[in-house]
């Protein structure tokens, strides 16, 4: 670690994105801005990878004394893991942004949210967590504000409600323990609960407030309403960072409340158990399960590529929350692995959608079609992302989902495991729908001149595609890293094979056998006669000649039968519920304003008289 002295690791990772973001915003010239931005995103990746051994063995701590508070940051193996995933997706986003957005504004606020997320991962005390949390929310909000006011306000209000409930919880912790540092606060809280210094309801509220804050950012079902709008109405390459990493801040928050603050862990037991599981975590598991099912069903029925990816992202994070809720070693290990694989394949998906929208300018499925020939490299990347998201064995997505299955079933949570099955089938369904609608079938005439995605975007995609394959074939690599900060009882036999108490998964042997199988099938294929290539429209149409503009595809509402089967549930939507709530508050505000400040000086004097009366009565008593 000679290159970067230890004292500079944390400040460099934390502040270089913001500083370069501001520079990129100031020097708003075409190529200078891009270079500055990419450097800003590259610094954290390089610094973190250099600090790997130091961080994974010991800890690097760093404090900023701002007078009002002491902001304390620590880089240990847990924060290194999350920060590195964030930085990796960050650099991919930077490459993506340099081809999709030409504005200093986007660079400033995307890199500001980058700093915010890094701060959240490295923070060691509540106030710095809250500060960087607000910074992250504000950065990502400004990215959406530019494109759609309604969605951005919806996103901001929900995240600010989350942030302020966190502040309330921090205040309540500070009130009882007098300290803001994670470790000390949790120790004292644990002691207090033991000696009965603090009531159980008090601790439950702290726990609930924290989970509300982190639930909003992770997009747990009732609070996920902002996700489709915020992810959709945004520069798609930034959304790869937004949905890939910012949702992980919510997950990181869950980890803090569940693990880093042992007192709350201790308090869990005080919350009692619900036939064998801790009530607290059981609720989280079910919240995750509901998120997976609801979000996946909604994703399947979407017509817009961005909405589909947004709901799918909410669903995938639901898996992580579910696994954290299951709360046994294997499941939590699976959750951490899924954090990695989700960031990779979801980031890749969003970059692909960025390329698609950049080149075709269209976002609805019915306008796409037959792009496989036109954008071959992006298509290859899409295949990798599809295989990984659907959880096909050689890919990273499968390894993490497999661990979550094992964990859930071992922890005797059968129904939750059942939802995982349903969720992964739905994931398979909407991923194939994406493949079909965008890449195959007849190409609409106005997409004929579509060119391949620009080079920087392709570089970004490859950065995210490689880990998908690497961690798919060698899950041991990632699990060894995770075992460094959690004692998941997943044994790592070798790079390629991981085994849990109940089952093993040797990725290498599965891949080898798959290659052998493909070889055999290929042999049979070659054995047959060679095939003549024909045009897409030349199909068995029972005789009638098919012309070019005759549309031979069913891209619009591909899953209408499923929608019919679910129409009972689709009547209710959280979105409409929140809209009505918002209008209610605005009308209440109007009523209050008209009622109280009604302009008549006499009524104002009556208000004074009433207060006088109260004081007089109290004075006399």
């Amino acid at each position, binding site marked *: 670690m000679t290159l970067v002295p230890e004292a500079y690791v944390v400040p460099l990772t934390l502040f270089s994105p913001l500083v370069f973001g501001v520079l990129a915003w100031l020097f708003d010239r075409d190529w200078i801005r891009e270079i500055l931005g990419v450097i800003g995103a590259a610094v954290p990746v390089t610094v973190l990878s250099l600090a790997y051994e130091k961080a994974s063995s010991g800890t690097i701590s760093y404090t900023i004394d701002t*007078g009002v508070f002491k902001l304390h940051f620590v880089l240990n193996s847990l924060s290194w893991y999350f920060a590195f995933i964030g930085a990796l997706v960050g650099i991919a986003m930077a490459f993506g942004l340099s081809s999709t957005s030409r504005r200093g504004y986007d660079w400033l606020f995307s890199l500001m949210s980058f700093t915010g997320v890094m701060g959240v991962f490295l923070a060691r005390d509540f106030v710095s967590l809250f500060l960087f949390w607000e910074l992250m929310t504000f950065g990502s909000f400004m990215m959406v*504000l530019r494109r759609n006011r309604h969605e951005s*306000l919806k996103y901001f209000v929900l995240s*600010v409600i989350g942030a302020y409930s966190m502040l309330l919880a921090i205040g309540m912790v500070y009130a009882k323990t007098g300290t803001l540092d994670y470790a000390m606060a949790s120790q004292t809280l644990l002691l207090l609960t033991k000696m009965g210094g603090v009531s159980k309801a008090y601790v439950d509220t702290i726990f609930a407030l924290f989970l509300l804050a982190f639930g909003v950012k992770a997009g747990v079902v009732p609070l996920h309403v902002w996700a489709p709008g915020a992810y959709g109405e945004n520069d798609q390459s930034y959304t790869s960072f937004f949905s890939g990493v910012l949702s992980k801040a919510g997950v990181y928050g869950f980890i803090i409340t569940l693990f880093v603050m042992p007192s709350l862990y201790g308090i869990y037991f005080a919350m009692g158990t619900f036939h064998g599981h801790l009530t607290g975590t059981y609720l989280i598991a079910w919240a995750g399960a509901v998120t997976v099912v609801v979000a996946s069903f909604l994703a399947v029925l979407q017509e817009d590529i961005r909405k589909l990816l947004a709901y799918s992202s909410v669903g995938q994070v639901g898996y992580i929350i579910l696994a954290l809720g299951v709360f046994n070693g294997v499941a939590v290990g699976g959750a951490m692995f899924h954090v990695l694989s989700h960031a990779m394949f979801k980031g890749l998906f969003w970059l692909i959608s960025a390329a698609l929208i950049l080149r075709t300018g269209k976002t609805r499925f019915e306008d796409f079609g037959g792009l496989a020939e036109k954008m071959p490299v992006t298509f290859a990347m899409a295949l990798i992302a599809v295989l990984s998201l659907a959880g096909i064995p050689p890919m990273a997505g499968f390894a993490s989902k497999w661990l979550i299955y094992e964990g859930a079933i071992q922890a005797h949570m059968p129904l939750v495991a059942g939802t995982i099955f349903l969720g992964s089938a739905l994931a398979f369904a909407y991923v194939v729908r994406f493949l079909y609608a965008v890449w195959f079938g007849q190409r609409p005439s106005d997409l004929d001149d579509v060119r391949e995605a620009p080079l920087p975007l392709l570089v970004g995609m490859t950065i995210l595609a490689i880990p998908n394959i690497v961690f798919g074939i060698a899950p041991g690599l990632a699990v060894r890293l995770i075992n460094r900060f959690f004692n998941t009882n997943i044994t790592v036999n070798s790079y390629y094979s991981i085994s849990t108490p109940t089952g093993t998964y040797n990725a290498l042997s599965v891949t080898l056998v798959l290659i052998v199988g493909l070889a055999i099938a290929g042999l049979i294929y070659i054995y047959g006669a060679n095939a003549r290539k024909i045009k897409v429209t030349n199909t068995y149409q029972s005789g009638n000649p098919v012309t070019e503009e005759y549309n031979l595809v069913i891209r619009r509402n591909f899953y209408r039968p499923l929608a019919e089967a679910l129409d009972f549930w689709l009547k209710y939507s959280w979105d409409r519920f929140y809209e009505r709530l918002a209008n209610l508050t605005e009308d209440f505000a109007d009523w209050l304003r008209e009622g109280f*400040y009604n302009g008549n000086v006499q009524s104002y004097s009556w208000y004074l008289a009433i207060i006088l009366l109260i004081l007089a009565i109290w004075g006399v008593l």
Partner: protein
Amino acid sequence: MNGQYASLLVALPLISAFFVPLIKGLGGRAIKYYLTLITALQAGVAAWVFKTVYTTGKPIIVMAGGWRPPVGIDLYIGHFAALFVLIVALVSFFMAIFSFDSVSTEPTDKYAMLFLLLMLGATGMIATGDIFNLFVFMEITSITAYALTAYNKTGEAAEAAMKYIVLGGIGSSFFLIGIALIYGSTGTLNMAQLAQLAGSINPTVIKVGLSLLVFGLAVEAELFPLNAWAPDAYQAAPHPVTAMFSAFVVKAGLYALARLVYLFSHAAGWDFILKLLVIMATLTVFAAEFSALRQRDVKRMIAYSSISQVGLIALALSVGSQLGVQAGVFHMINHAVVKTLLFLTVGYVGVKVGGTGIENFSGLGRKMPLTAFALTVGALAAVGIPLFNIFWSKVWIIIASIEQGYAWEAGVVLAASVVEAVYYLRLIHTMWFGGWDGIRIRESLPLGTIALFLVLLILAIGVYPNPFWTLAKSAGTDIFNVSRYIANVPLMGVGP
């Protein structure tokens, strides 16, 4: 230059106010230059006083007429007063420069006199050590405020002034009754001596007296049911005057309220008064934020936001812990800076674009980029985004109030500030992404420099709040720690 020269703080504006008619002969511009000169001088004196108080660490006691208190009236310029008199002077100096292009209605010499007297009243209220003197300064501020509100000679201005007069009149009369009762039972008007005698007054008199004092000041400090006059007065007054209202006139009322409340901390029924103040403060924040939600006029919207932030300060001051008071004072400083910037920019837009309706702000980012940028920074700071100054004080206020067991009130305040975020961000969206008519307006240099200075100040406090926090801490202890206050005032041995 021993302490006695600190009385210049009060004397300078008074004398120069009465020289204004002489300058009138030289023409309108001369008056405004004169006004800026005087406020600059006042800022110099205040800076000197600030330096002496903060270097020696001891407050400056100015004995009127050489009589030692409690017989003579004394000005007690402690840590808080030194800091805030400097803020009053600086804000008045900025607003004097702003008055150049924003105040055009005819009798500018009357405007200059009222301007100086308003500054005098606020400085007096902050510096005085005697409750009747406090009443006199409060009346000076109120009367100049009534006149300045009605200055624009439009129907709305007169209406706003009338409301302010009626409510202010009732408030000050009851304040006087309170003084009468307090004087009747203690025989002294000096704050330090009152603090000593607070415990010995018979409960009913002190309860009624203190509650009336608090009532009178609450009208001036815009707490919930009593602040009905404030939105109209802020909207109708000329732009620089509104900035002065929200920056220090309200603060003077709040400081007096806090000073009196903490003076009588040994009196009976004291904690009820605190609980009442906390409830009124929370309701202020709640009502003001919600009323601002669907405002069509930006100036009135920012007036509501200022009232809600004042409610937040009142909550911090009445939480009853040293940390709370310090956080409240820190918020006062931040709020003064942010609100001056906001009213300066909104006023400037009102002058240049003609009217402060929301439609004039659409596309401001391209029409007046510098003003739009300053307004955005001010709005973001007011919302409490990190890296801006209000974030720190708001966090401390919430933590302090929860620590004192007011978790529910903190919850209501946070819910209200979510609403605040909504209407400010709507404004930012209309400014930067709204459609515009294509005319680019040239912005004046002096106001640009003031706005930039304030923006840099906000960012400085936001990024590194340490120096300002230590200032606020010492000022806060000055209010909260009454025993030190009594020790500093050289009381003559004469008892009642």
